[in-house]
């Protein structure tokens, strides 16, 4: 099952990258990057998955003593949590940039922002 999650995640990343690198519309690029980020998160969780085990929460179903045999690796999940929040921060920032670019220049076509080059 981990393989499915990983494959899906990778495919999402590739689709996202392809979209981000072919659309010249800034908002579309950002959308594509969120897809890629979702893919990354999926890969992260997928790597930590172990078949037949349960979520890393100790309760009546999973006693502390049996935890090592029953739960999934909790660390990747903690990492994904962080990654999601960071992703949101970056997305928000990019969106705000898009807005400001639009306000100052009246276009959202990235190929128009080439006054700096060479």
């Amino acid at each position: 099952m981990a393989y499915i999650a990983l494959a899906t995640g990778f495919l999402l990343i590739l689709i996202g990258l392809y979209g981000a690198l072919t659309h010249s519309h800034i908002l579309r690029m950002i959308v594509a990057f969120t897809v890629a980020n979702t893919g990354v998160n999926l890969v992260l969780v997928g790597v930590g998955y172990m078949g037949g085990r349960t979520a890393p929460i100790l309760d009546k179903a999973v006693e502390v003593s049996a935890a090592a045999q029953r739960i999934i690796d909790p660390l990747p999940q903690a990492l994904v949590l962080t990654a999601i929040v960071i992703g949101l921060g970056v997305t928000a920032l990019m969106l705000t940039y898009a807005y400001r670019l639009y306000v100052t220049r009246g276009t959202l076509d990235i190929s128009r922002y080439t006054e700096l080059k060479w």
Partner: protein
Amino acid sequence: MDLFIRDNLMLAMLLLLSLAMLVAAFMAIYSKRSLPIAMLAAGLVSLLASVQFLLLGAPDVAMTEAAIGSGLTTFLFFFILGRVRGGANRD
């Protein structure tokens, strides 16, 4: 036996979810689609991902992805889209 059925069921669900996510992802980057649909599709990818997280035994991640990845992010997209209406459909 129960376990076997449960596992296969999960496998099927995961596959289905993955397929749905890939379709949604295609919609999100397919350029003929209008921008709002692309944004919604991206949100959908995220939402489906959160279901998948749940299946993968990561409820914490699932909650976060649902609240932040699909909820807030999509909202931000539409918010900005509303602000740049003039140039939004110019590719």
